[in-house]
């Protein structure tokens, strides 16, 4: 509940920061839209028509009032309401982030469990080295390598997904999702969570019962490690989303991330404002969802009442 209340100032903060930061960039919408050949008179007319001639605080006040009415304004480059432009692109980004998070987590968790169960021996060393390496490389760098291998060398995916009509969905997802998976950011979290849990008394109980090693790892240890792992997924959501934005640009997928980059390039202020606003909102919702998921993984923090005896 307090998390929900905190969301309001957080969203407003994002709105304010973005509003002033984009106006600090050199050039403005009029110059970017009309091009270098535009006359001063044309530029003045454009600014007046879109309210860009007013002082920044006045513009801000108007934008804020509209925001509270649920109006994010019209896009300067798409010529229609910002909200509809963003909502059109959002599913594609959610799809990418969701696949990335789910497959990336499953892969990382399996590696982490394997590493923990071979603690200090060669499978552990290889996996730990791999994940340290993967995490230290920037997302776009891994993405470019994957593009090199799978698009240029092997030709299984196109270099730019949006440039090809009627592409099967998996081909548009393959590159960016693989990049997130390879990044392997949860491997070490999982490994250390499992190692810690293996020291717990209830693991000794499970061994005393005669539970086989694989079940101890995946049922007893992982069952408990899910709590810290889900929390980490929650913390990592912003990063995953950021990663999705970069990856859309690298792999030419048309999602919210690419929309945002393009909007910044043409100084489409309302669109930048609207896109960041929706992304922030989405992130807050996703964080709340991880809280709920963590609650499901841990009966001790599940809402009391039902099973209480």
């Amino acid at each position: 509940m307090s998390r929900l209340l905190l969301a309001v100032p957080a969203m407003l903060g994002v709105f304010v920061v973005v509003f002033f930061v984009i106006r600090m960039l050199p050039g403005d919408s009029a110059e970017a839209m009309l091009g270098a050949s535009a006359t001063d008179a044309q530029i003045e007319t454009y600014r007046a028509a879109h309210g860009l001639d007013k002082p920044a605080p006045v513009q801000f006040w108007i934008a804020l009032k509209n925001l509270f009415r649920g109006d994010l304004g019209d896009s300067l480059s798409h010529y229609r309401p910002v909200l509809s432009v963003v909502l059109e692109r959002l599913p594609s980004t959610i799809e990418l982030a969701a696949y990335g998070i789910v497959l990336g987590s499953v892969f990382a968790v399996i590696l982490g469990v394997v590493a923990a169960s071979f603690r200090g021996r060669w499978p552990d060393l290889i996996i730990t080295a791999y994940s340290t390496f993967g995490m230290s490389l920037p997302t776009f760098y891994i993405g470019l390598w994957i593009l090199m291998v799978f698009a240029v060398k092997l030709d299984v995916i196109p270099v730019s997904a949006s440039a090809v009509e009627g592409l099967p969905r998996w081909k548009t997802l393959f590159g960016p999702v693989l990049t997130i998976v390879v990044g392997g950011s949860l491997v070490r979290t999982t490994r250390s969570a499992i190692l810690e849990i293996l020291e717990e008394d209830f693991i000794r109980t499970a061994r005393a019962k005669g539970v086989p090693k694989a079940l101890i790892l995946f049922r007893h240890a992982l069952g408990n490690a899910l709590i810290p792992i889900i929390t980490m997924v929650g913390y990592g959501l912003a990063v995953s989303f950021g990663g999705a934005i970069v990856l859309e640009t690298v792999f030419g997928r048309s999602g919210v991330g690419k929309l945002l980059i393009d909007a910044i390039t043409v100084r489409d202020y309302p669109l930048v404002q609207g896109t960041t606003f929706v992304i922030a909102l989405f992130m807050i919702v996703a964080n709340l969802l991880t809280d709920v998921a963590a609650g499901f993984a841990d009966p001790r923090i599940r809402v009391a009442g039902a099973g209480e005896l």
Partner: protein
Amino acid sequence: MSDGQRLLEIKDLRISFSVGEDTVRAVNGVSLTLDRGEALGVVGESGCGKSVTFSSVMGLLPSPPAVIEGEIVFDGRDVTKLSDRQMRRVRGKDIAMIFQEPMRSLNPVMRIGNQIVEALLLHGAVSRGQVWTRALELLKLVEVPDAPSRLHCYPHQLSGGLRQRIMIAMALASQPRILLADEPTTALDVTIQAQILELLKRVQRETGMSIVIITHDLGVVADIVDNVAVFYAGVIVEKADKYSLFRSPMHPYTIGLLNCIPTLQTKRKRLYVIEGNIPDPARLPIGCAFSPRCAYATERCLTEKPETRECAPGHFCACHLAGQIDPLNP
């Protein structure tokens, strides 16, 4: 005691751990037998190797770092020689174990029922169709009130005493022949302690299994065991049936322990405490390990380790002075 009665025989067990430069000698030549239906009490201060000894019987000691020598013969087989897989079929099935910390010994994210059912299914104690009926029976056997609804509980919803009952129910799942109870009541309130011990005694009598109750408090188990083995610094310093042990203790350490138990007679006197601490298992004395704390220690005690001798029928003691000390006047 004929060999046909013998269920478990530990022969000259030695267990050490390499910790950095040091070798921690946790168990230094323990020999012990357990018969069918016997209730054995294992007593000794904290750190003298009780848990390590019986964890090794369960194959629960990770080696490395543990180095295990000697034999642990269960049912004709030396369990120290069994593979992981073979040992797993003994653990929980033939020999079960419960622990000191019921609060932390159950998986916090699994329902009680599922944890019991897991134990039932592992060793094929009952068919799949009957596991839930059997789980319920087990809960009733260990006198858990409101049993059907408890099956759906998570451990954090239960008290320590109830959790220890659940541990016992789980341990009984495949009708083991030996139940090892490592300080089962140490973490519990005094009233709950008595109930749990009473329960252990009752199920032991009903099932005819053997039971080992490990404790640092002799008074706690005096009622429910037949024999007592007293541990000190990784050896058994004295073993006898409980009547001889209580009536005529021979080892100065046992005498000290018995004087620690408050009784009506000692009420007026200040309670006796044994001065000093147990020796560091990485730096054991050359002679008798108890000699630094022993009021009777002679030159010989400091230089020569005492052998275990049968000082009276069925009464074993490892002390050079066994039989020469008056227990009533220490």
